[in-house]
């Protein structure tokens, strides 16, 4: 607390107030001490010393302040320049004004004191003194003569009559005092005009000395307030061996003359003394004035530094605050200036400004966050869409693309953002039809809706595209769906309907036709001549076999169209494949290889129908190879597969046949999609149907250098461990 108080006293306004008060007190004391009638007269030197001490203290403080100012200026501290400029201005102002006042004061002081004295007055005083002396001189000569006469008279008288005669002489001459002395200094006799007095005024040594020189003495004798005339004359020696004596007579001076003489004396002495004191007086006044002026000057400069710092301080803070704001710190808050002046207003305005800035920044951040959230929301929606969504700007650059778009087009579009749409087509030939379509519609500038076919390894892909102009002409948004499966399903459904009708409409008349042909042969064969029996047999045999073939075909159709419930049972797939293979191994020209047969995988399936799948596939492969007159070499493999977190059983069947023509890859599994001479064209369609009934997938790929590969993928979710 004490330290706080000291700190407060050191830093606050207090030292300045204290200094001001002490300076005022000092100035008062100094001025009092220089006055004649003051008690402080004797303390002048002490007070002056105190002034010098305060001056030294001030010089120290001022030196420190100036040094700090210089240091701040050198280190380029904020506000130092302005402070220095203000201090310089203040100091200049103070110096100039004080110097003017000081020099005028000194001038007036000298002139004022010197004006007390005048040559004419001095001369007049000297003259009046001289006049007085002359006036007294005339009277003195008269009195000296009178005294000489008295001594002549006394020298004639015998010693015994001296006392009496002297008393008479006193009364006659009007003297105050008559005394007779020996030259040795011994009083012989005396007489006073005033009977109260008994002791005569003893002549001083100088009178004795003068008398010894045989000279009579007459002189003015100041006696306290009065003037007297003292005459001393030696008595003539009448007899030998007579002791030398002298008479001293003190005469009064008449009242008027005495009073005049006194006035002249006083005036002269006072004037002389004053004239003599002029120099020290001027010195003392000058010193005092100089001290006070110096003290005031230094204190003012100190105060100027203080006030400059006070003025600059808020500006300095303001500068620092502005810098902080410029560097991005909007939370800067200045200590609110208490003043109601422009600087206080400035500081308050600054604080308001930073507050507003902070608010604005918060608002911006909020809206930014909202925007981000919205974007995230949108992208989440987009990424969860199964449709591909891309946007293209007016420079034909790809701006955004969702996950589904990459999946559908089999191109990682996220890595191709900002690339021109043409380039995309050049780099990925299989998407070129789409890019060309987009290009075409971009130039026409209207919403559009069109289907496009893309060709890639797995076959044709049908995309349904919709282009929409973005608001403000900011580009296009293009949405596309993979409708391949949908189209296929539509086709499959159509085929199913056809098959069902065929089976129903055709199967019914076939049996009567066959029975009729049979009866025709049995009935008319014996009746015909030998040479024609052969023809009948051949014709009826043809009818029966063709009807049989038609029946088969219709059965196939009905198989295809039939949609019975699956008889799902746990079945080891390896076992199943081996059982089917066993039926084909009788032909030595047919080579079958089963890979990965070490472990078996058990899953729920309808074994009868899967058997049919395998038969159809084997038959198809053998027929394809034989038709191309190539060796039948079929490789089978089955294995589990992890894909997108799901487990699958993958069965591949590859041959070394001629492969699948490119235009058939996509429609291979559709009914009548065949280039073979034999068969109904429903084998692979049935395969696909059965596999899809098992929630699986089947597709075909051509292998290098020749041959085809059928891939079946069955989900293993229900696999039995």
């Amino acid at each position, binding site marked *: 607390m004490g330290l706080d108080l000291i700190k407060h006293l050191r830093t606050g306004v207090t030292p300045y107030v204290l200094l001001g008060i002490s300076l005022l007190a000092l100035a008062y004391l100094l001025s009092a001490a220089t006055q004649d009638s003051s008690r402080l007269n004797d303390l002048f030197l002490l007070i*002056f010393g105190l002034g010098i001490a305060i001056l030294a203290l001030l010089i120290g403080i001022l030196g420190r302040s100036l040094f700090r100012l210089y240091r701040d200026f050198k280190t380029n501290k904020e506000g130092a320049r302005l402070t220095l400029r203000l201090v310089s201005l203040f100091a200049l102002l103070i110096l100039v004004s004080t110097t003017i006042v000081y020099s005028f004061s000194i001038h007036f002081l000298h002139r004022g004191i010197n004006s007390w004295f005048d040559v004419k007055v001095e001369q007049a005083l000297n003259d009046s003194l001289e006049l007085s002396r002359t006036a007294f001189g005339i009277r003195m000569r008269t009195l000296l003569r009178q005294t000489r006469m008295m001594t002549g008279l006394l020298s004639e008288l015998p010693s015994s009559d001296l006392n009496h005669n002297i008393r008479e002489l006193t009364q006659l001459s009007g003297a105050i005092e008559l005394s007779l002395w020996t030259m040795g200094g011994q009083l012989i006799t005396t007489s006073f005009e005033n009977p109260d007095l008994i002791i005569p005024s003893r002549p001083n040594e100088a009178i004795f000395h003068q008398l010894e020189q045989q000279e009579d003495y007459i002189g*003015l*004798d*100041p006696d306290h307030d009065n*003037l007297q005339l003292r005459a001393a004359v030696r008595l003539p020696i009448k007899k030998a061996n007579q002791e030398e004596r002298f008479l001293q007579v003190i005469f009064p001076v008449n009242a008027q003359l005495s009073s005049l003489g006194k006035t002249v004396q006083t005036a*002269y002495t006072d004037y002389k*003394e004053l004239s003599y004191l002029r120099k020290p007086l001027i010195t003392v006044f000058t010193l005092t004035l100089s001290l006070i002026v110096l003290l005031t000057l230094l204190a003012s400069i100190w105060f100027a530094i203080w006030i400059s710092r006070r003025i600059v301080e808020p500006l300095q803070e303001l500068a620092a605050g502005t810098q902080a704001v410029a560097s991005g710190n909007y939370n800067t808050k200045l200590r609110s200036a208490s003043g109601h002046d422009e600087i206080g207003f400035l500081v308050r305005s600054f604080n308001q400004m930073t507050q507003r800035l902070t608010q604005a920044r918060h608002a911006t951040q909020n809206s930014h966050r909202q925007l981000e959230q919205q974007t995230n929301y949108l992208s989440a929606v987009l990424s969860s869409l199964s449709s591909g969504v891309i946007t293209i700007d007016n420079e034909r650059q790809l701006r955004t693309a969702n996950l589904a778009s990459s999946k559908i087009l089999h191109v990682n579009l996220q890595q191709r953002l900002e690339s021109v749409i043409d380039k995309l087509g050049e780099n990925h030939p299989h998407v070129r039809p789409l890019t060309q379509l987009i290009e075409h519609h971009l130039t026409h500038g209207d919403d559009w809706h069109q289907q496009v076919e893309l060709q890639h390894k797995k076959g044709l892909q049908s995309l349904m595209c919709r282009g929409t102009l973005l608001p403000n002409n900011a580009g296009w948004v293009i949405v596309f769906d993979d409708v391949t499966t949908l189209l296929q399903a539509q086709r499959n459904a159509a085929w199913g309907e056809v098959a069902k009708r065929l089976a129903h409409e055709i199967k019914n008349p076939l049996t009567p036709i066959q029975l009729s042909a049979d009866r025709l042969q049995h009935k008319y064969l014996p009746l015909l001549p030998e040479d024609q029996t052969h023809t009948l047999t051949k014709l009826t045999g043809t009818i029966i076999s063709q009807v049989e073939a038609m029946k088969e075909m219709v059965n196939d159709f009905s198989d295809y169209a039939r949609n019975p419930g699956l008889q799902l049972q746990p079945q080891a797939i390896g076992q199943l494949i081996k059982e089917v293979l066993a039926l084909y191994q009788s032909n030595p020209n047919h080579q079958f290889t089963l890979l990965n047969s070490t472990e078996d995988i058990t899953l729920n399936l309808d074994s009868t129908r899967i058997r049919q799948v395998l038969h159809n596939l084997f038959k198809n492969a053998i027929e394809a190879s034989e038709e191309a007159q190539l060796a039948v070499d079929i490789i089978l493999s089955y294995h589990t597969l992890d894909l997108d977190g799901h487990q699958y059983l993958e069965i591949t069947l590859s041959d070394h046949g001629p492969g699948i023509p490119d235009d058939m890859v996509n429609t291979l599994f559709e009914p009548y999609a065949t280039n073979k001479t034999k068969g109904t064209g429903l084998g692979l369609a049935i395969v696909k149907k059965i596999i899809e009934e098992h929630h699986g997938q089947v597709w075909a790929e051509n292998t290098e250098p020749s041959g085809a590969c059928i891939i079946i993928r069955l989900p293993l979710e229900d696999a039995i461990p």
Partner: protein
Amino acid sequence: MVFIMHAFVIARLKIIFWLLLFSSTVHAQTFEVASAQISKIGNGYVLNAEIKYPLTPRVLEAIVNGVPIIFEQEFELVKSTYLLGNYWQWNETLWSADIRHELRYHALSQQYVLQAIDTNSQRNFPTLSVALQALGQIKDLTLPPEYLEDTENLTLQLRSGIDLYALPTPMRPGALISSKWQLTSPWVDAQWD
């Protein structure tokens, strides 16, 4: 050669040093108690002393210009008690007196007026030297008999000076700091007859 030069310089410096030392003492020629004697007259003791007042030109100038100067003559009767042989003594001032005279120049009569402040008695002298001489003569100053019953270890010391505080105000600061006004004599012990 160098050595001789060096010695020469040192000798000169020594001379300057001594000159400086003496010049200060010569300048500050103070008043001086030339003699002081205590004589027994009857049952009492009286002091006879002679004090010399060599005035500096500064003081003379002031007197000539009509400034009254107060001369002080101080007397102290000191009783010394020896506590540890001669090594340490206890001094007790039994009595002290201060006789003051004002000396001023009376221009009209061209006399130097010497006035005792206490008794208001006045003497006039035509010259300053006579006046100072008269001032310096202390004749038969009666000492207080109550302290003089036992003169063992009793000392009367005296000194004289100018009362600077009696000077006119403007002169005082200058006089107080100037050596030309510091003329007070040292204390001198009076001798017992």
